[in-house]
């Protein structure tokens, strides 16, 4: 096993990038479509499930320090079911990688360069990701540490520059159509936060003591929720609740429409934002899938898997759907249930089993070999 060490801050920054990058681009329209004007309420309602996700992932990492989710799953649920769960989780990561590569390509093809084949964008972002991933998690973490502050600055400046166009009366009346749409939107948002599970592939390489994971995960989640406040409220405040629903990329549209004196046509900010973000996100997913696969099959090094996995991602992200509308509809209608099941429910079940095992082991007086194997591997 490689001796890679990243700091806790770097780990937090990695997950922030990977959730906000396509979250801001692809998920905002889905949430707006469900909830429209009341979308900001989702941010409040999503707090409990989001914190539960953070708690689950960090608790598991704390119980099995130094191990990724693929490694400790067999220790919790048994060898064969553990492998099965691991395959499910890897599929979940893989699917996310597909969506985000495809979303990245579609964004450019729809909004910026319609004549350029989408494969060009897949190839560009994936070769960068391959290069970064083969250079180790440390490199990835450091690059992202450099990029994320830029992205946050761009995001903040966008929300400041659009402020003069915002009419906050657009949020009235609250809950005109009752609570149901808000719950739908909350479910979508919670599903997006479900990809926090990716952290379980990163935690083992954090140099800090595993005890600090729980607190930092909760803080990361709060930061993530706050980071969605601007993109969720902006389109409604600027375009009105009715119009904001039908826009393909509302947040990009906001950037396009910035006009402060001679400062206008800031499309390039959007391109910068989603290129940097997608790079971080896709690299992290590529890393996690390669590492997970190598651990699943007991390979010594994940590096040999990086290029094949990247090729699979490129091909499958083309095959994942016929057109962009299908992706949008998937994110809107299916994804909330799918992702909440995979990212929230499954890990929670795994955590409960792990807790129960730990307790029964304690009752038996250290008889269980499960915990023992875990400790030997930690050392």
């Amino acid at each position, binding site marked *: 096993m490689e001796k890679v060490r990243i700091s806790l801050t770097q780990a937090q920054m990695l997950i922030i990038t990977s959730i906000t990058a396509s979250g801001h681009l692809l998920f905002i329209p889905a949430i707006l479509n469900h909830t429209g004007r009341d979308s900001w309420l989702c941010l409040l309602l999503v707090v409990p499930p989001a914190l539960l996700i953070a708690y689950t992932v960090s608790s598991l990492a704390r119980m099995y320090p130094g191990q990724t989710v693929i490694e400790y799953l067999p220790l919790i649920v048994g060898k064969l079911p553990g492998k099965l769960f691991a395959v499910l989780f890897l599929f979940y990561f893989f699917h996310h990688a597909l969506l985000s590569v495809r979303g990245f390509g579609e964004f450019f093809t*729809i909004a910026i*360069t*319609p*004549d350029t084949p989408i494969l060009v964008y897949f190839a560009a972002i994936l070769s960068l990701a391959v290069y970064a991933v083969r250079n180790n998690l440390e490199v990835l973490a450091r690059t992202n540490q450099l990029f994320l502050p830029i992205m946050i600055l761009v995001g903040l400046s966008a929300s400041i520059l659009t402020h003069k166009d915002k009419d906050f009366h657009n949020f009235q009346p609250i809950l005109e159509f009752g609570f149901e749409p808000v719950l739908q939107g909350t479910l979508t948002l919670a599903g997006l936060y479900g990809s926090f599970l990716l952290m379980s592939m990163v935690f083992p390489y954090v140099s800090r003591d595993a005890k600090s994971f729980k607190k930092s995960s909760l803080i990361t989640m709060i930061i993530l929720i706050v980071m969605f406040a601007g993109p969720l409220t902006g389109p409604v405040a600027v375009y009105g609740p009715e*119009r904001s629903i039908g826009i393909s990329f509302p947040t990009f549209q906001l950037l396009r429409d910035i006009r402060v004196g001679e400062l206008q046509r800031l499309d390039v900010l959007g391109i910068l934002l989603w290129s940097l973000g997608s790079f971080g996100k896709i690299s992290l997913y590529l890393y996690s899938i390669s590492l997970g696969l190598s651990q699943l099959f007991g390979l010594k090094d994940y590096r040999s898997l990086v290029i094949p996995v990247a090729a699979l991602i490129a091909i499958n992200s083309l095959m994942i759907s016929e057109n962009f509308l299908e992706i949008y509809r998937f994110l809107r209608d299916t994804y909330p249930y799918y992702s909440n099941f995979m990212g929230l429910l499954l890990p929670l079940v795994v955590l409960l089993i792990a807790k129960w095992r730990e307790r029964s082991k304690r009752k038996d007086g250290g008889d269980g070999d499960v915990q023992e194997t875990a400790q030997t591997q930690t050392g």
Partner: protein
Amino acid sequence: MTLSLVRRALLTAALLVPLLLSGCWDKDELNELAVVIGVGLDKKSDHNYEVTAQVIKPSPGGQGGGGQGGGAEVPTWSLSANGKTVMDAIHQLNKISPRQMYWSHLQLIIFGEDLAKEGIAPVINWFERDRRSRSGTYTVVTHGTAEDLLNQKIELGKVPAKAMADLLETSDDRQLSARKTSLRDLLARLSTPGIDVSMDVIDPRKIRGQVETYELTGTAFFKSDRLQGYLTGQEATAVEFIEGKINEGVLLVPCPNQPDEWVTFQITQIRSRLTVDAADGKVKPKADLQLEGNFGDQTCAADLQDPKDRMRLQEDIEKAVIKSIQTAYKQTAELESDLFGIGRELRRRHPKVWQQKNAQGWNKQLSEIPLDLSVKVEIRRPGLIFQPTPTKIK
């Protein structure tokens, strides 16, 4: 000397890289483009729209002080074509334009009167959908056809569409209060229930017998996407008053005690608040306006420093504002256009009442709803003189 394998590989790679740099799919060369600066949309016959695009003619280098008097060549060209949709018409335009039309610098969209009366929703779709569109593009209505408006030769400014955009853009500096409806405002209003669109009207203006410039002739008001009528004169600024958007403006009121003489009041600040009360099921809209401004001009000799006269003048200004807004409101409400967004405000405050009223057809009920107005005017400053120059002859 022999190169090592690594070096050879690197060299090959370095030689291959330029192959990739030869260009990209989406390049646009400036000398292959025709920059569209303004577009006019007209109705030709049923389901047939005419699109007139005004493009800038590429000029060969600097024109070297070539002011050849009044007959200088117009540096623009307007080309028109018909189509079932806007994009279809543009497709037809492409057949006659040797250069690719470039829409990113579109400044102005003009709706001809006939089209505006039939409804503008079918023709704005393309402007939203196309990735080159800009939501800051101004939208205006003209009494005649848009094609005709774009094909005028004007004195101040060489590019007609740009001149019209400037007419709107700098209206504040010229102490006018134009609506300045951008594509984004237009779409936001069209999609929001309980508020209707209004746009500036621009017409060609004849001076000394021939068209020499453009004129802002008022405000066109819509019901949904259909043109209902025009507000002219003082009434044209009613929406600006209600929305509190008048940054600079001028009001004409009679001198106290001398109805034939006039005082001009310059608005410098406005605060406005529209509230709708529907506590007992009856919709009661109320607008509170606070105006601040200065003396601009007067024809009467009266010394307006006297507080009594000033008070009276303030009251007269208040009355004038109320009259213009009420006239505009009556006129628009009769034609079922909710220009001030009373429905939207009702929905925000009393969603239940709104749903009920909306089910019965909100716009039809407008004419039965009286608008309560309260205007407060403060005259702050007299300019550089306190009173008019005392002349000996009275």
